[in-house]
């Protein structure tokens, strides 16, 4: 066809209204980011402001002093939090990932829907109720409070989040990747473990870290499970201190020195959580191949 248009198409003029709208929307989206980040920055700045004065070597290495004496620290609570979180992760992460694998690879049916529903409900159960469950499951049988009971409570809280994110991340792995593996004569379970799971690793780790960060600062489920302890304890079957419990106790106390220590404890707790999440992220990035 050989034709010329009667009127040539004009070079598209971008009107001042479009420019203005563009600028406005960009400004608005930057503004929303700032609004979202402000509380986080404010909390962290305030914690540093209030807590850094009481943060010293003694705080990180000593156990609490008896009531009335000034000084001492939360070293046992830092260790206790680490211990309880380790127990919770050891139980919660494999269970959660396993449930996620089930939901994505074998749960496209009514049974899977039931698991999905229960998991979403569990996600919404108040943490104090989970504490009561762990109390009934572990504390009542053992006949005393323990780090193990605290770990069980936090593990129960981690499972639904990890299960659902694992499921979503596995579903994002294209079917063509699974078919490539089947085509090589690799069995279904091998494909799931070595191909599908591996392809979804970074997303699953994000889910695990979200769940970890969420339970790391929990107080309510530990109140009558780990219970707290003024002394060092490395026995899983004994009552154990935790930073969140220590902060709770100290913040409610009438002593100024304890208030200051509670601030320092909160600062340490949030730093540890941020540090752990950052460390895992860096480790994951480090292991990646060029172009992956």
């Amino acid at each position, binding site marked *: 066809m050989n034709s010329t248009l009667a009127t040539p198409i004009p070079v598209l003029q971008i009107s001042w209204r479009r420019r203005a709208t563009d600028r406005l929307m960009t400004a608005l989206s930057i503004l929303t980011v700032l609004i979202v980040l402000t509380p986080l920055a404010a909390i962290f700045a305030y914690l540093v402001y209030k807590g850094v004065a009481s943060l010293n070597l003694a705080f990180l290495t000593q156990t609490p002093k008896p009531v009335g004496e000034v000084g001492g620290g939360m070293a046992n609570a830092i260790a206790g939090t680490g211990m309880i979180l380790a127990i919770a992760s050891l139980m919660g992460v494999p269970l959660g990932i396993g449930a996620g694998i089930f939901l994505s690879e074998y749960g496209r049916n009514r049974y899977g829907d039931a698991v999905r529903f229960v998991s979403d409900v569990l996600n919404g159960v108040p943490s104090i109720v989970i504490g009561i469950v762990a109390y009934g499951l572990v504390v009542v049988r053992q006949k005393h409070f323990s780090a193990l009971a605290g770990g069980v409570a936090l593990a129960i809280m981690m499972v639904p989040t990890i299960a659902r994110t694992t499921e979503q991340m596995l579903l994002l792995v294209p079917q063509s990747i699974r078919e490539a593996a089947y*085509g090589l004569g690799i069995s279904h379970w091998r494909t799931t473990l*070595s191909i599908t799971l591996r392809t979804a690793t970074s997303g699953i780790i994000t889910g695990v870290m979200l769940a970890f960060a969420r339970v790391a600062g929990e107080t309510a489920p530990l109140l009558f499970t780990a219970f707290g302890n003024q002394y060092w304890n490395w026995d899983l079957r004994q009552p154990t201190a935790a930073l969140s419990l220590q902060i709770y106790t100290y913040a409610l106390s009438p002593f100024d020195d304890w208030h200051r220590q509670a601030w320092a404890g909160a600062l340490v707790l949030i730093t540890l959580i941020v540090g752990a999440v950052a460390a895992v992220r860096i480790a994951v990035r480090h292991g990646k191949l*060029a172009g992956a």
Partner: protein
Amino acid sequence: MGVGITVEHLNAFYGKTQALFDINLAVQANHATALIGPSGCGKSTFIRCLNRMHETIPEARVEGSVRIGDLSVYNGTSATQLRRRVGMVFQKANPFPTMSIYDNVAAGLKLNGFRKRKLLDEVVERSLRSAALFDEVKDALHKKSGASLSGGQQQRLCIARALAVQPEVLLMDEPCSALDPISTGKIEELIFQLKEQYTIVIVTHNMQQAARVAEFTGFFLLGKLIEFDKTEKVFTNPSDKRTEDYVTGRFG
């Protein structure tokens, strides 16, 4: 060495919809056989019945008999066992994105329990050479992800990965449909060389490609095999009117 394929009274279904109707055909060992036909005619479904990939789709099922060499595909052979002898290359290159080039090629052996390092090194190099990719990637075997290669290289990587498990048959489902003419040329050259060792079944939309690489051609229409003969015969003197309409471009 390649082996022949015999298909008898093959019917394939997706739920209640029948996709293939009573297919009978014999593929010769160490030759390339092309399957042509319009979109949705069942050629991909057919090729996926040969390595039991069809049944990985929910509610899909197959009736009839397929023999690959001395193996009865739907009678007493496990799908994983079968697929180690019948390799497959897909329409869209699908390297494992988190694995290095080396691991991509070695995956079929490694994940089936093969661990001898020296042997793996040998197989990986040989397979990459067979797929005409070795020289382009030899410096980055362990450093680069399979997904970092260009589209044409990725497809050759997938061919190398299929060859590494040393199959007897290689199924190719439109392997060049997403590639430029140069990459397509390389893969067609490859098919010529691979014929010496493998039996090749290739699905293609490109009739020139079928004419170039295959000794035998089958024409599918609406789930039926209309004609199956020597490629030359199918393209120059087809016995069915519908085949003639299709290959001359007068179709639909």
